[in-house]
């Protein structure tokens, strides 16, 4: 059917473990010396074929060989045995900002990074505007990187890594960085690359992300590929194993971390920030100016309690006459899956005809019975329900945080719906 872009046939990777670092030197330099190392097999007998355009999620507990696999695919290390073929340009997000120099400006660092991974200076300069727009750090690109906040650094590094148009993208949990707005942006961009045919290999401990993004999941255990196949199936297999492992370790009185859950997030402002202008398209005859979240008392906020009443307020501005416009929104979770969405037409509300250079504010009063976390709001304005073109469509116009229910009730799944339970004993 397709063209394999990655082929691994019985690939092994061995590390030599030395009790003392000087033993390595002795072994290298002194002829005829006996073996001073013990072998550690980071990967054994890995056979895997990846077709162009596939997205492979790699799961496994810490130390199962995930990172080694990515390093092999990136060409940083060589297998000890077996056959490994990778076709195409590889961009790896194994560590963001690897090779950035603190004394150089953001732009100089991006140019440097580009040449390191094999682009010509002209090719990088052509991509610079896109990279700077995606990073959204404004005039800071002219400043030395040492003056950046960690968030700005990550944004720029990620933007650079992702704009080099790779055939194969390797991601090692790099998405667990940056604020919520940026995370939504990253997922959005990775999905775009998937759609454009980029092969993506990514390592993550985030079950939701794995299931949502990958077309196939590979499970590693102690350096062996123990299962592969349907994302939901393999991910549950992994989490079943991982929880068994936690139970075992906790029983032994230690603590274990399987991965980083997305915890408290920096809360961004309610107006359209420069970086949110990124994913916007439309004719521009009318524009979404701002999207805000208000709490039940009408106060602007970015965080709302689970299933509490809130208002999503959309400010629109018309440049031309619009007799029958429609305004809508949709809400995506961190994996980019659309959970909720509606518009004034579907809800049976007719917007008043607008003159050129007039404005309109639409309030969507709603409740968000969603699992706690961050969500990205997109909003759009269209001339009518028949025209395919939009006046304006803005992705990531706002990121809202849904707080956990005060009762401490656990939410299973993404969305909670009211449930009535009746019990009859017989």
């Amino acid at each position: 059917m397709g063209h394999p872009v990655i082929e691994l046939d019985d690939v092994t990777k061995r590390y030599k473990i030395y009790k003392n670092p000087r033993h390595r030197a002795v072994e290298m330099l002194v002829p005829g010396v006996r073996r001073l190392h013990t072998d550690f097999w980071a990967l054994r007998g890995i056979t895997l074929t990846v077709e162009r355009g596939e997205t492979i999620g790699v799961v496994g507990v810490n130390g199962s060989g995930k990172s080694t696999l990515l390093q092999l695919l990136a060409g940083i290390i060589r297998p000890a045995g077996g056959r490994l073929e990778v076709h195409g340009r590889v961009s790896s997000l194994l560590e963001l900002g690897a090779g950035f120099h603190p004394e150089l400006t953001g732009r100089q660092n991006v140019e440097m990074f580009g040449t390191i991974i094999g682009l010509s200076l002209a090719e990088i300069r052509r991509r610079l505007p896109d990279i700077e727009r995606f990073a959204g750090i404004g005039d800071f690109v002219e400043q030395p990187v040492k003056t950046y906040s960690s968030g700005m650094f990550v944004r720029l590094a990620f933007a650079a890594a992702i704009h080099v148009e790779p055939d194969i993208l390797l991601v090692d949990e790099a998405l667990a960085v940056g604020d919520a707005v940026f995370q939504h942006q990253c997922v959005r961009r990775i999905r775009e690359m998937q759609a454009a045919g980029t092969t993506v290999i990514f390592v993550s401990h985030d079950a939701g992300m794995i299931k949502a993004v990958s077309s196939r999941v590979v499970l590693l255990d102690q350096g062996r590929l123990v299962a592969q196949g349907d994302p939901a199936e393999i991910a549950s297999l992994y989490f079943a194993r991982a929880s068994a492992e936690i139970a075992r370790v906790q029983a032994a009185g230690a603590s274990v971390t399987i991965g980083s859950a997305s915890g408290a997030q920096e809360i961004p402002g309610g107006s359209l920030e420069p970086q949110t202008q990124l994913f916007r398209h439309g004719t521009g005859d009318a524009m979404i100016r701002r999207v805000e979240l208000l709490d039940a008392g009408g106060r602007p906020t970015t965080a709302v309690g689970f299933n509490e009443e809130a208002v999503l307020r959309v400010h629109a501005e018309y440049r031309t006459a619009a007799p029958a416009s429609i305004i809508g929104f949709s809400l995506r979770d961190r994996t980019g899956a659309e959970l909720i969405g509606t518009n004034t037409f579907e809800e049976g509300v007719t917007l008043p005809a607008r003159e050129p250079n007039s404005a309109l504010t639409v309030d969507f009063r709603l409740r968000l019975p969603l699992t706690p976390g961050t969500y990205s709001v997109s909003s759009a304005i269209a001339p009518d329900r028949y025209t395919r073109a939009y006046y304006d469509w803005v992705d990531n116009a706002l990121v809202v945080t849904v707080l956990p229910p005060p009762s401490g009730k656990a939410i299973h799944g993404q969305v909670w719906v009211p449930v009535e339970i009746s019990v009859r004993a017989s």
Partner: protein
Amino acid sequence: MVIDALVTPFQVFVRQRTVISQFVQRELRTRYGTSAAGIGWVLIRPLTLLVIYTFVFSTVMNVRFGDSTRTVDFAFYLFCGMVPWLAFSDGIGRATTSISEHSPLVKRLRFPSEILPLHQVLVALAIESVGLLILFGALVIDGRSPGWPFLTLAVIVLPQILLTTGIAWFFAALAVFVPDMRHFVPFGMMVWMYATPIFYPLAIVPERLHWLYQLNPMTYLVEAYRGAMLEHQAPALATLGVFCAASIAVFIAGYWTFNRLKYEFADVL
């Protein structure tokens, strides 16, 4: 096969030219762009060394080059030997630690790590060229305008790059696995410096030790610089040929040593 093995090392200069030039620029920018005296340090260091060595060897110990008793002539000879030596030893010194200093690059990106030692060699050479300009200016002021043999430096510098890079590759690769190299190299360079006729003319070295000096490629280099700059003498073709052949051999051997070991770097760093 054999042709490939001989040609591949040279292709680094062509294939990686963009990365090399970026790294050289970055090194110069971060080394001098961030200090108050800036590019001034390029002058301060060799001139200070020149004054100290001249005082110690000429004024105190009364070493002479040729017949001249003028201190300034001693300074010219000394500086002429010091300039290529500093380019050589600085390049190798910095190259030795260049892999571990850039470990994020080596561990996290597919990266032509051979340019890490190489760019330090080129940076040291760029700095050397400033020293040469000063020397040239000083000679003109002193009324000893160097004649056309001065131009032969342009030829000598090519094997000089190859020789330095070859040794730099060897030490840099070894230093990843043998941490002792970072102690050994500065110390070894000091020994090598005194074993090269920089502070004294080869003529005052006892005859029975000359074979040792003839094994030292830096002897040829220093003598060639002095010939071209001070004595209006182009290097003898035979000598130059031997120096070139040796430099090319060291360059190719250094490349293959480095290339053999570089895939293990990520395992060790």
